[in-house]
């Protein structure tokens, strides 16, 4: 009897759930990132609009979007994408063109609005390390590739992005010339050759939440990681630290998945997320930079020090969207062949 009651209760919830106001599914980067986004953006927006916001984990790439387009079943409505993926998805028609007239903060956002995307936040990926495992702190990419002075496993993202830039920086290429060198076949060979030197000591992360966990548990001694995740781990008392030297900066954008049945609601959510107060709130609990300049004034100075604002960003490079739009697919194939051998 008890079982029947439970099932009945479950069914009622399921049925009323579908009958409720619209629910918007937002694909974003998982773990503490999504948790904080929920606190700063999704939950307040859901409360204000009277709708439900569900989240899904997205780890980059176009695979899931292409599969949704092939099957004609858009499981996600809004997605937070990296710049190169955004352009590729836009060209393939996997995401909807953005009608700038419907973006309330259009004037403030300026260039952050592109053909198919609305700038969501700026992030930096930095070299994080475990403070207990390291006798001295690594200061940049040369140290990351120096397994004699800094022994132990180290992790990079399982993607040619970050890894190839890192290899060239470690090999002595000037910050300003990274993409110039990478645009030549010799430059790409050089980057892979440099990666070869530490291949045996490398571990590869795929989800943004992994590096901070690995660093905290001592599974790896050094890893690239998003600043926001490391700040989160630090806040919980994990023995991790990072250095802005050699950081890589880029902007993620909101996009609307083609075939979404909740386009209006999607615009509402993007508008909410673009508001200066919502962006300031998110930057305060997760170390990312706002795309709405009006948010800057609302962020306290101590927080400014740990988010990717200009002063921090200048110690590293900006990831070139243009280079990766043209080369991402080819280099991903080559990277996969390299990693599997």
């Amino acid at each position, binding site marked *: 009897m008890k079982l029947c009651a439970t099932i009945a209760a479950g069914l009622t919830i399921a049925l009323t759930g579908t009958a409720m106001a619209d629910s918007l599914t937002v694909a974003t980067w998982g773990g503490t990132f999504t948790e904080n986004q929920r606190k700063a953006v999704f939950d307040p927006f859901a409360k204000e609009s009277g709708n439900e916001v569900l989240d899904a984990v997205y780890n980059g790439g176009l*695979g899931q979007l292409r599969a949704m387009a092939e099957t004609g079943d858009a499981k996600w409505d809004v997605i937070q994408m990296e710049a190169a993926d955004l352009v590729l998805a836009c060209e*393939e028609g996997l995401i909807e063109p953005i009608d700038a007239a419907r973006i309330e903060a259009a004037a403030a956002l300026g260039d952050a609005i592109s053909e198919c995307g609305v700038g969501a936040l700026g992030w930096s990926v930095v070299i994080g390390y475990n403070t207990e495992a390291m006798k001295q702190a690594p200061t940049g990419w040369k140290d990351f590739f120096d397994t004699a002075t800094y022994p132990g496993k180290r992790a990079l993202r399982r993607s040619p992005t970050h890894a190839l830039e890192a290899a060239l920086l470690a090999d002595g290429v000037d910050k300003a010339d990274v993409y110039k060198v990478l645009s030549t076949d010799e430059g790409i060979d050089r980057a892979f050759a440099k990666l070869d030197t530490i291949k045996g000591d490398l571990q590869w992360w795929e989800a943004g939440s992994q590096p901070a966990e690995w660093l905290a548990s001592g599974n790896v001694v050094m890893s690239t990681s998003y600043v926001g995740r490391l700040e989160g781990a630090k806040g919980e008392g994990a023995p991790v630290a990072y250095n802005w030297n050699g950081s890589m900066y880029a902007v993620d954008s909101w996009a609307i998945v083609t075939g979404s049945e909740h386009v209006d609601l999607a615009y509402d959510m993007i508008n909410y997320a673009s508001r200066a107060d919502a962006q300031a709130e998110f930057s305060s609990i997760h170390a990312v930079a706002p795309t709405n300049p009006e948010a800057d004034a609302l962020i306290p100075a101590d927080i400014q020090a740990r988010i990717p604002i200009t002063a921090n960003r200048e110690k590293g490079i900006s990831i070139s969207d243009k280079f990766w*739009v043209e080369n991402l697919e080819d280099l991903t*194939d*080559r990277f996969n062949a390299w990693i*599997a*051998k």
Partner: protein
Amino acid sequence: MSDAATPNPSDSSSLQLGPPKARPGPRGGPKNWVTMGLVLPGLLFFLVMFVWPIAQMLSHAVYSPEVQIALPRTVAAMADWDVTTPPSDAIADALILDLKNADRGDLASAARRLNYEQSGFRAALLKTAREVRRSDGAKGYQALLDADKDWADLARWRVLRSAGSAYTSYYLLTALDLEKRPDGSIGRVPGDRALFVTVILRTLWLSLVVTVICLFLAFPVSYTIASAKPGRQALLMLLILLPFWISLLVRSSAWVILLQDNGLVNTALLKLGIITEPVQLIFNRTGVYIGLVHVLLPFMVLPITNAMRAVPKDYVRAAFSMGASAPRALFQVYLPQIWPGVAAGSLLTFVICVGYYVTPLLIGGNQDQMLSYFIAFYTNQSVNWGLASALSAVLCAIMLLLMGLYALVPRRGGTTAGR
């Protein structure tokens, strides 16, 4: 597995490869219709749910009409192009018209397809499409050159022409690390891009090692079970079958907990002083062997146990009483009789292992992934279904080859004692 009509009990452990042989019976009688009627639903299910989807999937390996769909006029106009002189304005106009009219998704698919064969083609085609859509009056070869100067490169036009056919050998060649050179000959791709031959050989080698380990481990286990008293036999059988009741995912993940650097095995070895620092047991080849042997061992134990049970004890005793040495009794009397079980178990283990996916994924490193990992990767991650199908076709071909070899192996050893 066992068929009442099978005359030989030890045959029950050999794999039934084809349909059972038709029994002689009355032809065309009403009974035959009833049999047909009973078989039909199963047969239809098999065809509709199994043969048809697989054929569909495999057809992607050679059928690739993206360019034809997106650029039909261009493909038609290029049919009589002589491939050595720059294309005429008529061809260029056809391309411009196609680019203006193509559906966004279709054009993107065609651009990806062309980019597989010539890197940079995707960006160039989409850029050209943007340019010609912007200017209404764009006409002729010069308009294309204005949009992207690399249209002067005839190699690009040749790629476009060959991709215009709905059928392609590109995916199958790529699956074997081969490529079609501009002059039409077929050669190996450069070392830094070659991958799949390594993976195929790795898959076969891994499967072979796992099969051999399983065989050696299964032998004593099977013998113990086959020679135990009936009651204990049932209990032992239960222990062998127990793992089947637990999800494969759980069993594979459990190894991660046991074998990781600070896992049970390493901790125990460290405490016992056998090792001074943790041994890498997981996310490498060792871990994959441990995991796969664990998962596949029952498939080896069951057929061998069956075969051993069917061997009357008297035969070996008789061999001894007639003066045979222990090795001779083993090799001349015992092994030939359990041979069908050994062959069936080995084939079963090997074939399942060749197609294994989840265990190496969970407990293997990047250099331990087998062919099915790449099939999944190209299906789900990069959504390159052509290559995924071609790799599946290669895997299928390997399986069929193995089955063929198995069919050639004699079913029983030299002795026909007792028949």
